[in-house]
């Protein structure tokens, strides 16, 4: 399978199953599009008059295409069905926990998927004992995994800061003996960010996710406190100070855009202009009845916005003033292997969410959905939990019907199970609106990547 697209002056051919990427001229672009379903004569008949080239030019191009095909870089066959079947039978071991250390929040964002922090349930903070048991549970069930991920999440995790610190200390005290490497991360709204938190995070947190929606009027539309006051003026100076001290350690400034700011690139540029360089901006996922929900009419606007973002990134990169956009990051040479590309996020199998009381869910998006309570950290998975884990194990980029003919499936790995569940009622479903945005983002990501190709990046076949 190939996917061909144009972005400004670039003609791009993506060979889906080999992962190869080709930059081609107009002639090669048209020939490659025709190649699989046309004879040489049909190609000549169509291309010679269109591009004012000779038959010899066409033959040379066809010869190059066939050399790439023979090298496994074009029209590569799909050989991964067997891997997808193996993944369904695999015995999964735990690798990551989303620790909900606080089911409460000091903001009151109306669009919050976590229902202002309590996930439509009881408010509460995780005790040290529960958190400690969760870390033990992770290690006990982690099998061969050496690298383990723990995200402190909420609600707002800094509302339970002392426990966060104690849990990091505990994890550090046992990881070596268990031959594990725990990577802690923290997601925060910044309200309680202090010098002490910053110093600790810079020492211990592998990554920190900072929540800001962009421009003041956009951020303060939703990200308000219990009295309805906007958070922008409080958090931005704290985030700037935090990032200054962060040095070269990982962080992301992460926002959500909604129907009310479909011009979300202005929010990304605003973040960049504030001095933040590692940026992420996500489309809101909410009930279609919500006023903030993205609509079909928004879709062309969003597509154009993603293109605008790519062009601006290319421009700023060339001016030495670039920034990173999470969804445009592509590691072409050292990116994920095919197993990762098929199996995806690991929700419900390798990745679980833990509530303040120790209950287990497939991921943070399922917390407090009674159907998806999998058990708890004290007794392990319940019968329902084992059944649900199996349901998640059956989901991958090859088992989702909606992914069958999609060229981007090895980039999204079949998409988010929670989005599929909320959209189509099944974790094996897809969220088509999100898929459309995702495909556009990958095209734009490639456009950005290909804008700075150097000689070192180019493949030269061995003679």
């Amino acid at each position, binding site marked *: 399978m190939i996917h061909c697209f144009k972005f400004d002056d670039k003609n791009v051919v993506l060979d889906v199953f080999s992962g190869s990427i080709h930059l081609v001229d107009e002639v090669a672009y048209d020939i490659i599009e025709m190649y699989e379903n046309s004879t040489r004569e049909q190609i000549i008949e169509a291309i010679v008059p269109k591009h004012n080239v000779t038959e010899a030019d066409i033959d040379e191009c066809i010869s190059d295409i066939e050399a790439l095909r023979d090298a496994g870089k074009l029209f590569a066959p799909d050989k991964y069905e067997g891997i997808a079947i193996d993944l369904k039978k695999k015995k999964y071991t735990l690798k990551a926990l989303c620790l909900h250390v606080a089911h409460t929040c000091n903001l009151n964002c109306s669009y919050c998927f976590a229902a202002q922090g309590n996930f439509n349930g009881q408010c509460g903070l995780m005790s040290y004992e529960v958190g400690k048991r969760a870390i033990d549970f992770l290690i006990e069930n982690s099998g061969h995994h050496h690298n383990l991920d723990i995200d402190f999440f909420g609600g707002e995790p800094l509302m339970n800061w002392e426990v966060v610190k104690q849990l990091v200390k505990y994890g550090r005290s046992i990881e070596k003996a268990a031959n594990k490497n725990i990577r802690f991360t923290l997601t925060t709204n910044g309200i309680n960010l202090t010098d002490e938190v910053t110093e600790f995070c810079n020492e211990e947190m592998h990554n920190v996710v900072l929540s800001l929606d962009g421009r003041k009027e956009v951020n303060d539309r939703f990200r308000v406190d219990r009295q309805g006051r906007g958070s922008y003026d409080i958090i931005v100076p704290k985030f700037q100070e935090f990032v200054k001290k962060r040095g070269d350690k990982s962080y992301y400034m992460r926002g959500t855009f909604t129907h009310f700011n479909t011009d979300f690139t202005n929010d990304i540029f605003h973040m960049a202009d504030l001095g933040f360089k590692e940026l992420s901006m996500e489309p809101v996922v909410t009930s279609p009845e919500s006023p903030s929900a993205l609509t079909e009419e928004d879709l062309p606007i969003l597509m154009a916005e993603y293109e605008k973002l790519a062009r601006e990134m290319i421009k700023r990169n060339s001016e030495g003033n670039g920034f990173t956009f999470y969804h445009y990051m592509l590691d072409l040479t050292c990116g994920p292997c*095919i197993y990762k590309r098929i199996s995806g996020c690991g929700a419900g199998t390798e990745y679980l969410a833990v509530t303040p009381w120790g209950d287990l869910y497939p991921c943070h998006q399922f917390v407090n959905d009674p159907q998806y309570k999998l058990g708890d950290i004290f007794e392990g998975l319940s019968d329902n939990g084992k059944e649900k884990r199996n349901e998640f194990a059956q989901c991958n980029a090859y088992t989702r019907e909606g992914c069958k003919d999609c060229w981007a499936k090895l980039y999204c790995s079949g998409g988010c199970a929670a989005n599929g569940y909320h959209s189509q009622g099944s974790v094996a479903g897809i969220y088509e609106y999100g898929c459309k945005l995702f495909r556009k983002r990958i095209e734009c990501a490639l456009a950005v990547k290909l804008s700075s190709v150097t000689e070192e990046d180019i493949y030269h076949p061995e003679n």
Partner: protein
Amino acid sequence: MSRIITINTRDLNASSKNGGCGECQTSCQSACKTSCGVANQSCEKTAK
């Protein structure tokens, strides 16, 4: 190849032979928390 520039990329087919160690970061932990993308993840085994 005068009309085609091929970019160096990881050979996905080859990665089926030496991949699958499961040591890379859990994708949803990194930044998004509401979507799924793996293409921006880095492999723990391939050297930069």
